[in-house]
């Protein structure tokens, strides 16, 4: 029998460094360090400490799971870039898991998942189970004021997760493990921004050019 897949999962999409190590269906190590800043400095040393503690090495990993947001743009890029580097170095898949999927993990479906965004807004997604016993899937996320999202949830009677729920790296490893077991082609993780970059074309137009 092949060994149980060993999956390292992590997330820095909010004010934390969260990490977990899963062997088969068991979580064998976990860490959650709250921090406003310093994730870029802390993340990789934290992962090394966790692997060491579990008596595992990088080469033992079968996949890495990474939180792709929505969340803090810079925070998401920190984890996604590191995960893509690890995948490249180890020749294993990096599996992107959205904040919605991670937060819905382990809940009775359907649920409405809210992820906090700046200026009193949230990203809202309804997660449903297409078939009993299958993982959840989500509709198109919508960006709206928190009050509107709560009103919609109230009208539909859906339980609400968020907008301040903690993303757990254990949930990321669970979602990644399912994706790995499904055996389909896994695309490289990309940040899920859900908002365009703040940028506007220059307002001033140059004068008409005469021949």
């Amino acid at each position, binding site marked *: 029998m092949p060994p149980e897949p060993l999956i390292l999962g992590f997330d820095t999409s909010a004010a934390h460094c969260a990490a977990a190590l899963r062997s088969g269906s068991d979580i064998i190590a976990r860490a959650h360090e709250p921090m406003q800043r310093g994730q870029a400095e802390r993340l990789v040393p934290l992962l090394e400490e966790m692997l060491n503690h579990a008596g595992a090495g990088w080469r033992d990993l079968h996949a890495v799971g990474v939180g792709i947001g929505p969340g803090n743009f*810079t925070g998401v890029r920190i984890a996604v*870039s590191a995960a893509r580097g690890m995948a*490249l*170095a180890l020749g294993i898949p990096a599996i992107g898991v959205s904040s919605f999927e991670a937060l819905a993990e382990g809940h009775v479906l359907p649920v409405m998942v809210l992820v906090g965004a700046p200026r009193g807004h949230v990203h809202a997604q309804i997660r449903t189970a297409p078939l009993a016993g299958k993982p959840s899937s989500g509709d198109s996320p919508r960006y709206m004021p928190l009050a509107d999202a709560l009103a919609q949830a109230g009208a539909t009677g859906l339980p609400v997760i968020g907008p301040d729920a903690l993303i757990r790296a254990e949930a990321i490893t669970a979602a990644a493990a399912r994706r790995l077991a499904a055996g389909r082609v896994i695309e490289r993780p990309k940040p899920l921004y859900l908002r365009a*970059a703040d940028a*506007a074309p220059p307002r001033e137009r140059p004068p008409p050019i005469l021949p």
Partner: protein
Amino acid sequence: MTRSLTILGLESSCDDTAAAIVRHTEHDRPAILSSVVTGQKDLHAAFGGVVPEIAARAHTEKLDFCIEQALHESSLTLQDLDAIAVTAGPGLIGGVLSGVMMAKGIAAAAELPLIGVNHLAGHALTPRLVEPVEFPYLMLLVSGGHCQFLVARSAEHFTRLGGTIDDAPGEAFDKTARILGLPQPGGPSVEQEAARGDPARFAFPRPLLDRPGCDLSFSGLKTSVLRARDAETARYGGLPRQIRADLCAAFQHAVSGVLAEKTRRALRLYLAEKPEDPIFAVAGGVAANKEIRTVLEIVCNEQGVRFIAPPQALCTDNAAMIAWAGIELFRLGRKDTLSLSARPRWPLDQTSPAMLGSGRKGAKA
């Protein structure tokens, strides 16, 4: 003992995503085994300048592909490398962070040493990548984000003789292009237009020439171009094509005039140190401008100083210079831990007083 080093370099501090592999055996010339640069020109074109968030997004999704291509082109695997070097600043922090985290992911998982490189050191050490050059040499680093004179004394020790107190020349080229309705990036488009223009038609200021020292200023120059444009536009009810060319020529002439005179002064300070083999080198995107290159070469010839201008692909942002700086630093014993920080501000000369952004966050460069 001769020891061969092969290092992967990563660069993502502005709008070029780059990966390269350089090999160097002591007492031998370094070899660039591969150098991949993926630009983002089209992504920023509509905004009249580099948008940091757009740049950061692109780096995050492009850098690993660049690395794979660099490995493929050199027929190497990560196992063949001795270390990985990455730009850790100064620059647009989102992009720098993506590069640093990618490098840490690889360094940790492949168990390779990690070296954080100052982007400016990458430019400043490029002369030694392309030719046998001994320290100390004088360097003019002139690009979209920087303009400074440095005496390079070792791979880790630089003395700044002067620099811009406001805009970098590359920024001034971009702004000039924007106000004259020319495409971005402004360097090549203004240069092309200037070739058909008469520089004598407008007399633009030569800022700070009246003051001693090697400091420069370019923000007033772009304001002068704007004023001249408005006056001409009012006169003709639009900007005649020939006058636009003349504005470009006069602007470029002013920039090269200032750089030539300040280079003369920097050379005087450098030559006072009596270097054995005096060398002046340029680097940075603006060093690709032919008029600027020519006047700098003339100044060097006047003073009997060897002039080095690396090929254009090594003047603009690239990762071969980061790999090479990594090799130089690694030989000096430099190694960083996996808690390496990305730094938006990181002056190369840590001792001279700060020139730009000397506020709470410290000097930019």
